């Protein structure tokens, strides 16, 4: 499986709004915990280690 880095979201604005809504009313700590759980759930959905490492690389701060 190769990592998809081209547009792949049907309704980008709706999805982005869902993400923000999930964090609404949370403290910074609660938000950080939610993000951590979310990453783990999505990582499991991907499953493949190479794809996940490609995602880590794409997310890393650019030099």
């Amino acid at each position, binding site marked *: 499986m190769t990592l998809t880095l081209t547009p792949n979201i049907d309704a980008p604005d709706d999805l982005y709004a869902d993400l923000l809504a999930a964090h609404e009313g949370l403290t910074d700590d609660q938000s950080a*915990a939610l993000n951590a759980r979310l990453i783990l759930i999505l990582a499991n959905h991907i499953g493949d280690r190479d794809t996940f490492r490609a995602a880590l690389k794409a997310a890393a701060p650019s030099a």
Partner: protein
Amino acid sequence: MTRIFDTPLYPYTRHPDQDAAKPVRHPVIIVGAGPVGLAAALDLGQQGVPVLVLDENDKLSHGSRAICFAKRTLEIADRLGCGAPVTDRGVRWNLGKVFFGDRKVYEFNLLPEDGHRRPAFINLQQYHLENDMVSRLRTLQAEGAPIDLRGGNRVSDVAANPDHVALTVDTPDGPYALEAEYLIACDGAGSPTRDRLGLGFTGRVFEDNFLIADVTMQADFPTERWFWFDPPFNPGQSALLHKQPDGVWRIDLQLGWDIDREKEKEPERVRARVRQMLGPDVNFDLEWVSIYTFQCRRMERFRHGRVLFAGDAAHQVSPFGARGANSGIQDTDNLCWKLRLVLAGEAPDSLLDSYDTERVEAADENILNSSRSTDFITPKSTTSRLFRDAVLDLSEHHAFARPLVNSGRLSVPCAHDGSPLSTPDALPTGPTRTRPGAPCPDAPLGNGYLLDDFGNTFTLLAIGRDAPGIQGTTPLSIPDITDALRTRYLGKADSALYLIRPDQHIAARWADASETEIQSALTRAKGGQP
């Protein structure tokens, strides 16, 4: 109360070596009579190699210390003749429970594979294991095995020479000198032998303290392993409760780095902590208390000429996963047959280099696993704690997160994929678990088990066919293929030949092989050039 480990078991007696005009030379001297030194002594002694064990004290291990012994260790103990008493005494467990905060997040069953003589694990105090090993040593001695165990003999100096190792040994009667053709240093994490030879021991120190307490109680806790992350009785830290024989329970409480170690060991303070954990209604006695910190590190090389390091003297791991004593006993399993062949002139001295290659590979695997467990149990940063807690939170409701929970990856033997003694795999459709370098998995055979039929020699195992007679090997033909043998040794093949080392690791395997090919593999497995 008299405790088994308070009684001298092999008290000092004067030996004629102490009155010899010049130092007496022994083929093999072992420093240290812990489980690793004793395993080496039994292994060499029962194969007829004269062996002398020197120990600075005369008692069993003080307190439970190592408490979890893995199947591979029990299989080695079987070969050494003390597997049955050790296993029978041990507590078997399969169920583990994981708690996070004040709630149980999930439980797991080890679900050990059927068809093995020994269980995946037993819990047993280290002193019981040592006691059974000393009993076995006494039996072997009575049968004439050349094993000498000298208590009250503290090695005070070591000098490595090209053709021998010179030792100075302190005793209650004063010092005396000894020489060894080979020295096996099993003198623990603080190895004085390592220090005297000026050898380094580097790695990662974990800044943490753990309080370990053996408590005796008449309580009806089930025989399970309970592990707590951040429990109410030890906030921000971890805790472990494990059952041992004789109504003794092992409690491990993480204390953090910034503590007053002496104060934490005060019995009243320990009792208060344990009472908080067990509740006010449980009556208990403290048998033994200790505080430890740990490191993950190893020597750069385990062989230094005629001095070989084994167990904690060579490598140290965190306790999570029970990879300390178990891997130390595997070190001796790997070393002793090689030493016997070299001493008998049946193999080149360079065979001992493969001890270094193979056991460094194993130590690195153990250090990697135990470091990862430690990083999960004691997160080192805010972010690492965030992910750790996220995994634990998710594990309560979602099965996917449970394999990520790491409270210790329990010890399994290393498959020596980098071994110079292995011949390239010639059974490509065979199971991965029995590739060259891997340890033999057990399987039911007749009224017993496969591993029962392996001795201290090279075995030529033939499954679904006859084993040819090859000099230097013991043939074992198994014409009738059971499901377990097919799954573990054949895979898609109809029959197979395996060359198995004396330590029950696989040296080579074939769908079919000529006599020459088998002989070449045997030569290679003995450290020679085929």
